[in-house]
Each structure stands twice: as structure tokens, then as C-alpha cells.
């Protein structure tokens, strides 16, 4: 039990929020209701898992939100609503993610620009590209098959009834990032890098390449989150804008230490679920947007303080 808590410090908070959520809304007492909760939380969970690599390696990735926007817009601009063009569009958005991640990584690792500045710059550039490409308003929609990941459902699943595809994506990304961070040599190098970069270098860790890889993983999860989010709700010029900070917040609530070296994927994922449960509970209380932001801020500070004290 103690070990579980150590890996997932957000677990008590998550359980409390889920209990409150279920208590308040009959809708969330049903299996489909919980599935919809998971479906809506999926982009944030995926993103928190990916950005954990950058955080644990001792950096920040602020460019994720605008990358999500670009993914949704690129999907619409490339396909122009034509289902036959979905495959090239998906390939293209993954290529975009790869490029953005590599650029972030190279600038941070080789040019030695602090990651918070680098990714802030990328955030603005990517946002600019998305705005210029769409002309400020998306002029087309995403075809149904492009939206499958975010909106599709598998019917007639035992126990669950119907299973949103997003939930499968969530579980897969969780499992893969968990394996990568906790079960591979690469994962241990990420921890070493975040703990003490000099020591890692002396120990023979290819620190620059590991750092680049962390940014690439982070960007690729942003692409997946973009596919989920765009799929769930369609194109919009500012879809995903808030997500970079929310993902970092989720990771902090989940026990990932901001200066690097400590944290788990299970922690980040449970932190993301707790944060999304918090949004849901605030909504169920009927809290208006400004108050919601304020409450959200207070709870974040509390969570960060709690994590720091441990």
C-alpha cells in the first residue's frame, strides 16, 4: 500500500474527487458515465504521461498546447473533409510532431537554450503556423474516420457495454510510456539525467540524445492528444490551448518533481485523472468559469506544496 502511495501520491485525492463526483451526479454512477469521464480525460492523461519524460529529465515543454491546435487544424486542412485523405493526414501530423520535438530537443540539448524559453518560442511559432494555415478560422471539417480515435466506440463489449476508443488509446499510451520509463535502459538514463546531468554524463549516458528523445516523446503524445481532442470535438482554432500547463499541473499533482529526477507514469496519469475529476466536480457544483479558475489554482498550489513536503 505504501509503495502504491509512493508511486501515485494523487491516488487519495483522485478517490475522494471520484467519490464526490459519483455522489453528486447520478450520471457518473453508471458505467457509460464513467466511460465518458475517461474518454474526456484521455487527452490530458496521454499528455501528462508524455510530458513526464521531459519533466523527469529536468526540463519543461510548453509547446504541447499549440501543437495540439496545429494537429487538429492540419487534419482539417489536409483532408478537407475527405475520408480518403485521412491516412496521409495522420502520417503528416506525426511527422509534424517529430519535427517539433526534435527541434525542441536539439535547441535545448545542443544549443543550450533553457527549455522553458525554447518551448515558449516553439509554442508561439507553432501557434503562428496554425493561425496562418487556417486563416484564423478553420474552413473545413475533419472526416468521420479521422475522428475515430477521439469519438469512435466499440460496441457490445462485455461488462462495459460500449467502449470508447479513446479509453483504449489512454491505456495503451499509459502502458507504453510506463514500460519505456520504468522497464528500459533508456528510462533509467532519463532519471539519471534529471537527477544529476553531470554525473549522468560521467557515467557514460548520451545526455544530449536522451534529452532530444524526451522532447520527441513529449511531442508525439501531444500529437496523439491532438488526434483524440480533435476527434472528440472537431476542429477549432484554439483547441488544446490550455493543455500544456494542465499536463504539467497534472504531473505535479501526481508527484513528479519539477526539477527532475523523480516521478512515475502511474503518478502522472493518476494526477491527470484527479485534475480532470476536479474540473468535473467544479462543473457539477455549477461554478462559473472565473471562480473555477481560482479554485483550480488554489488546489494546484496545495497539491504542489503537499508533494514538495513529502
Amino acid at each position, binding site marked *: 500500500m505504501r509503495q502504491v502511495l509512493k508511486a501515485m501520491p494523487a491516488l487519495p485525492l483522485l478517490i475522494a474527487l471520484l467519490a464526490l463526483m459519483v455522489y453528486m*451526479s447520478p*450520471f*457518473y454512477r453508471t458505467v*457509460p*458515465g464513467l466511460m*465518458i469521464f475517461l474518454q*474526456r480525460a484521455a487527452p490530458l492523461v496521454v499528455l501528462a504521461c508524455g510530458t513526464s519524460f521531459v519533466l523527469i529529465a529536468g526540463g519543461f515543454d510548453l509547446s504541447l498546447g499549440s501543437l495540439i491546435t496545429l494537429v*487538429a487544424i492540419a487534419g482539417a486542412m489536409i483532408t*478537407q*473533409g475527405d475520408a480518403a485523405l485521412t491516412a496521409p493526414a495522420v502520417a503528416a501530423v506525426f511527422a509534424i510532431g517529430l519535427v517539433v520535438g526534435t527541434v525542441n530537443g536539439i535547441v535545448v540539448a545542443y544549443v543550450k537554450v533553457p527549455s522553458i524559453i525554447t518551448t515558449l518560442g516553439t509554442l508561439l511559432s507553432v501557434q503562428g503556423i496554425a493561425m496562418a494555415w487556417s*486563416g*484564423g*478560422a478553420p*474552413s*473545413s*471539417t475533419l472526416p468521420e474516420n479521422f475522428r475515430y480515435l477521439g*469519438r469512435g466506440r466499440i460496441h457490445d463489449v462485455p461488462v462495459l457495454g460500449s467502449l470508447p476508443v479513446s479509453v483504449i488509446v489512454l491505456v495503451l499510451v499509459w502502458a507504453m510510456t510506463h514500460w519505456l520509463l520504468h522497464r528500459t535502459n533508456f528510462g533509467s538514463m532519463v532519471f539519471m539525467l534529471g537527477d544529476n546531468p553531470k554525473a549522468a554524463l560521467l557515467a557514460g549516458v548520451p545526455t544530449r540524445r536522451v534529452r532530444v528523445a524526451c522532447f520527441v516523446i513529449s511531442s508525439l503524445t501531444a500529437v496523439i492528444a491532438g488526434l483524440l*481532442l*480533435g476527434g*472528440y*470535438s*472537431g*476542429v*477549432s*482554432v*484554439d*483547441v488544446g490551448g490550455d493543455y500544456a*500547463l494542465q499536463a*504539467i*499541473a497534472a504531473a*505535479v499533482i501526481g508527484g513528479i518533481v*519539477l526539477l527532475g529526477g523523480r516521478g512515475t507514469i502511474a503518478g502522472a496519469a493518476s494526477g491527470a485523472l484527479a485534475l480532470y475529476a476536479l474540473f*468535473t466536480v467544479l*462543473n*457539477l457544483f*455549477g461554478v462559473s468559469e*472565473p471562480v473555477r*479558475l*481560482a479554485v*483550480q*489554482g488554489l488546489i*494546484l*498550489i496545495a497539491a*504542489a*506544496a503537499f508533494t514538495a513536503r513529502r
Partner: protein
Amino acid sequence: MAQTGLIRALLRAGTLIALLLAMCGVTWAQVANVNVDKEFAEQMALMKAKPNGPADKPWEQWFDANLKDTSSYAKKGPYHLCFSNAGLGNAWRVTGWITMQAEVELDKDKIASFDHADGQSNDNKQISDIQSFINGGKCDALIVSPNTSAALTPVVEQACKHMPVVTFDRSVNTPCPVTAVRSIGGYAWGAAGAQFIVKNIPKGGKVLVLRTAPGIDVFETRWTAADKIFKDAGVDVVGNEFVGGDRAKTKAIVTDYITRIGQIDAVWVDLGTVSVAAAEAFQDMGMPYPVITGEDEQDYLQAWQKDGFKGFASTYPAYQWRTAVQATLKILEGKPVPAPEWILPQPVITKDNLAKFVNAKLSPLHFSMCGCEDMPGFPERWGGKK
């Protein structure tokens, strides 16, 4: 982290205050200039009135029979027309612009040239566009679709001294254009959907209102009218949210309302773009559809037909882009035109005439009240498939 959260919250608060200030300014201006009740009553009367002109060509129809003599503008053709466009910033304008170009081609024996300038949704750009048309001295007449009324007024007044001017969509604050083409108006638009809702939900039913942004004239008139209808009918407006025309935000907000309130009886929108996202929220939650109002965009019409919810589309007809060209030609030929305003009918789409407007071959963002079905190149030219 605490810091970034705080900064973000502060930024949000700042934006909110700025928005509130902007809102106050606009509301004041409206109160000073417009008699809401009178305009509302006029528009409601027009929705019931019978327009003049051919019934099968609503873009040639008009209300009020005052025709203005334009013989003083008569000229020998073919004509050089100039068009200053506010911009192509949304799908409605794209549909309209294609329709307008098709209309110019239909009249090619009368039109020697058709120059157009794209204002890129920027007042300054459009002002300089119009100035170069005036200075170029080539235009026989000028068509203007103003980006904003007040900013464009002086330059349009200047243009009026050199050639006949026709405005459409938005107008300018001067009577100098020969005529201003428009449809009935925002009050009628908003009221029509609200009346449909009142008729189709139980008394005291729950309505969710989705609006675009505060302080924009066209949206304020739509909501003012709907609000009046809802209040008179004792409808329970459970939420009134600004979604900025954003489908993603719309779906999230509607989903939030469903989890909080449960079944909602109707969703009223002030912009058809978000209707499909609202419908999706109910579909994905496995809830029965409520009444969902919308506009004449294909994706909404198709979803309405396919999913079978109770729909209703108010329209802001894109066929006025055709009318503007036809009006200009009439003026140059010295034929009388309705003036100072050419008020076009503003049809609604109900389940009875829905089939006429649904066309799966068209692109999802095509506006069906374009009056373009019989034009050459339909539907491919409008982004549709053969």
C-alpha cells in the same frame, strides 16, 4: 507551477475586464441609436409579409414597393464593376463570394470587367482598397461589403461622389449609396428559432442558450429577440454561455450541462456553426436529442435529416451576394431599384422544406440559402462533388 497557474489566472482576469469594458461601450452605443422594440416589430411584420418579385428567385425579391429612379446613373455598357470585399474570413463569405463570381459570369455580356479587392477583415486595408478604386478612375460602379460600418463610412461617402455605390451584408452610416442590400435582420433571425422551440417543448421546459461573443451587433440582436420570446413564454433558460463559435468548446460545455442538469429540452444557438457539436454531445452521451436550432450550413442540415432531431434553421441568405451584382447592373442601366434599402426575404428551413436544401454532395460548410443551385458549375464550383 503555482506561479504559472497564477499568471494564467491573472491574464484571464485581465482579458475578462477588457471584455466587460468593451461590452459596456457597445451596449451604450446600441441604446443610443436604436429603438429595439420598433425594429423588432418591423422585422416580425416583414417575416409575415409577402415580398414583391418572382417567388422562385428570392434574391430578386424585395419588401416595400418604393422604387428609386436611377436614370441619372444610366450609362452605356458593358460596365467596369469594382467590388471591395470586407474579407473571406468565414464559410458564409466563401459561399457568397463564389456565388457572386458565378453571377458575374452569367452577366458577362453586360460586364466588361469585375475588379475585386479583399479587405482581409481589416478596416484600414479596405479603406485603402476603396481609395485606390476611386483614384484608378476605372470603375463605373462600386459594390462594398463593409468590414465595419463606422470606419468605412467616410471613404464610402467619398466614393459616392465619383460613382454609384451599392452596399450589402453590413451597411454604412450614410444614405449616400444608391441602395443597401440586406435581408430582414437579426431580430427576425433570433425570434424564428426561439418561436420554434417554444412550440416544440413542454411549458416551462429547459433551454440551453449558446452564444458567440458579447457586444457584436448581429449576435446581440439575435439574442435580444430570442430572450424576449423565451421570457414571454415562461421558458426556463438553464444556461447562457459564450462559446465563440468554437465547436470543441461547445461540445465540452453542452456535455457539462448534460451531466449537471440531465435532459435539456432545447438548444438555441446564435450561430449555426456550433449546432452539430451540440447534437454530438447528446449523441455521445447516449441521450435523446433535444430540439436544436441552427443555420443553413450543410453539416447541420445533413445531421438534422440523418439523426432525426427536431431542427429549425434561420438563414442569413448568402444569395444577397447575387443581389448586389444585379442591383448594380440595374442602376447602371437606369432601371429603378428598391431604395434606400433593398430588403430581401429571409426564409427559414423547417422539416417541410428540409429535403430541398440537403445535398450530400456539397461540402459541410456550404450555406444552402445561396440561391446558386441553378447556376453553372453547381455543385463542384462550391466545393461539392459531382
